[in-house]
């Protein structure tokens, strides 16, 4: 399996900052996988994402150490323009990303900036809108849409660039639970249909447990946990690092400690209730 992203002992201190925002961070991400990055706020997640999409070091000044490679090419030595074709970035607040008069103009924006020929833009925009189920919104003004719809428009704009790697920084924080779940399902589908790799920063881990291949937890700028979502959430250390362990998982861990249920595999609430009922408790 090929790596789409290789981070080697990366460290960064913002100019004027007293200490490093990220230190000695290494990670390899396999093409076509979904990776979740978690950890307390201020631990350096956004900084790490900026180092992948090139904002660091191209737009932020500071002390840079180690190396970050996307599709085998060093980010430091690439231009933002090139990177934009490989790495797509969805901001936390879609309002920072959509600003045109119509949905289709918004989706086309990145491609127009790259100077892609008109016919090619047309077909890619239509394809992206189709994929995200927003074709019927093509002529609408983005500011009239709901937050969930805005998120889809922004994501369509990202996907129209056909990036190999898509970065989502807390994509569900503005969404209600149902809309958030729909977004996660969409991510899983895009990975399957297009083979896109996703790097997602998220606090609501219960949403991602089932679709993520890997979970990395950061604290104080360093990587402190790295494993499958199962390993990380069922382990003893996650809560101490400020990872939100779902209530039902906390309960399962307690009951496993009491010897009532298994503790090696995470269960849904329904599974847990069934197991307990069948055991006659």
């Amino acid at each position: 399996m090929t790596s789409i992203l290789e981070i080697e002992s990366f460290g960064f201190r913002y100019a004027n900052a007293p200490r490093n925002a990220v230190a000695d961070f290494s990670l390899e991400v396999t093409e076509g996988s979904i990776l979740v990055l978690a950890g307390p706020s201020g631990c350096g997640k956004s900084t790490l994402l900026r180092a992948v999409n090139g904002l660091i070091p191209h737009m932020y000044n500071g002390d840079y150490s180690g190396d970050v490679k996307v599709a085998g090419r060093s980010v430091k030595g690439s231009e933002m323009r090139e990177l934009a074709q490989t790495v797509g970035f969805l901001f936390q607040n879609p309002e920072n990303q959509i600003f045109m008069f119509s949905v289709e103009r918004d989706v086309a924006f990145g491609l127009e900036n790259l100077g892609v020929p008109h016919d090619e833009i047309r077909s890619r925009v239509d394809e992206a809108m189709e994929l995200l189920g927003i074709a019927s919104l093509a002529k609408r003004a983005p500011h009239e849409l709901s937050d969930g719809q805005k998120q889809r428009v922004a994501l369509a704009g990202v996907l129209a660039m056909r990036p190999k790697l898509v970065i989502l920084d807390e994509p569900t924080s503005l969404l209600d639970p149902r809309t958030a779940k729909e977004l996660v399902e969409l991510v899983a589908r895009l990975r399957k249909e297009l083979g896109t790799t996703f790097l997602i920063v998220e606090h609501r881990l219960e949403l991602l447990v089932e679709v993520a291949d890997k979970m990395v937890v950061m604290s104080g700028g360093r990587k402190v946990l790295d494993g499958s979502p199962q390993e990380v959430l069922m382990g003893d250390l996650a809560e101490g690092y400020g990872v939100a362990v779902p209530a039902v998982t906390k309960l399962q861990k307690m009951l496993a400690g009491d010897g009532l249920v298994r503790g090696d595999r995470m269960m849904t609430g329904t599974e847990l209730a069934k197991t307990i009922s069948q055991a006659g408790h």
Partner: protein
Amino acid sequence: MIEFEGVSFTHPNGVLALDNVDLRIEKGETLAIVGENGAGKTTLVRHVTGLLKPAKGRVSVDGVDTRTTTTATLSRKVGVAFQNPDHQLFSESVEAEMAFALKNFGFEPDVVAKRVSWGLQTFGLEEYRGSSPLILSGGEKKRLTLACILAWDPDAVILDEPTVGQDALQKERLAGTVRMLGAAGKTVVIVSHDIEFLWPMQPRVVVMKSGRIVADGPAAEVMQRREALDSARVAQPQLVAFGQELGAKPERPFVDALGARRFIEGRRP
């Protein structure tokens, strides 16, 4: 102390965001307003300090109609931490941001200094004292707006989506702050779709859908009503759903994992 009587509001683009809302929030109450994106929660909140005025009906704070007074006067009583902190932060430093409203409300300089230090410490922002609010992360900005409001000690606080961008430990601390405010007799209104955050606090819950209030009552009661919640696209707390599957008594839902464990151990043969 905060009352909505038959309030309707239409945004300039023609969206009816509040549709004949009746809601009475008592002094000292902790209330959660839930509902899917676009249900009208933020529009409701913006009416309390008079940022929006009802097209129909009446909004009052301590009996005073919001149309007859100013937002500044109302803000002294009801502090609102808005959903998007970027719209609220504008000073050159975190410290100046905290001092701004305090000075405006006429507090003495030594009181201002004390309260600024209290806020920065309580909300873990001390190290940013001299920094621009703009360099803070989204979660830090949210905590700063909350610190600013609590510093002037209003009777009521309204938090619009306070958990956005906060990690688990900060959410726990935030829940602690909400409990402390409740214990101090403050009125606390939390607008949030983070049901798991709200549930352990057992607030009164108001469910909104398309500008209307479709359910209102204690959390333990409202959160059992799966159909009502489904139709408003609100999730049920994990432990409530779990309790229902297990056949636990609906009037004694599991507030936390420990409560569920006690129940299960109690049933062991």
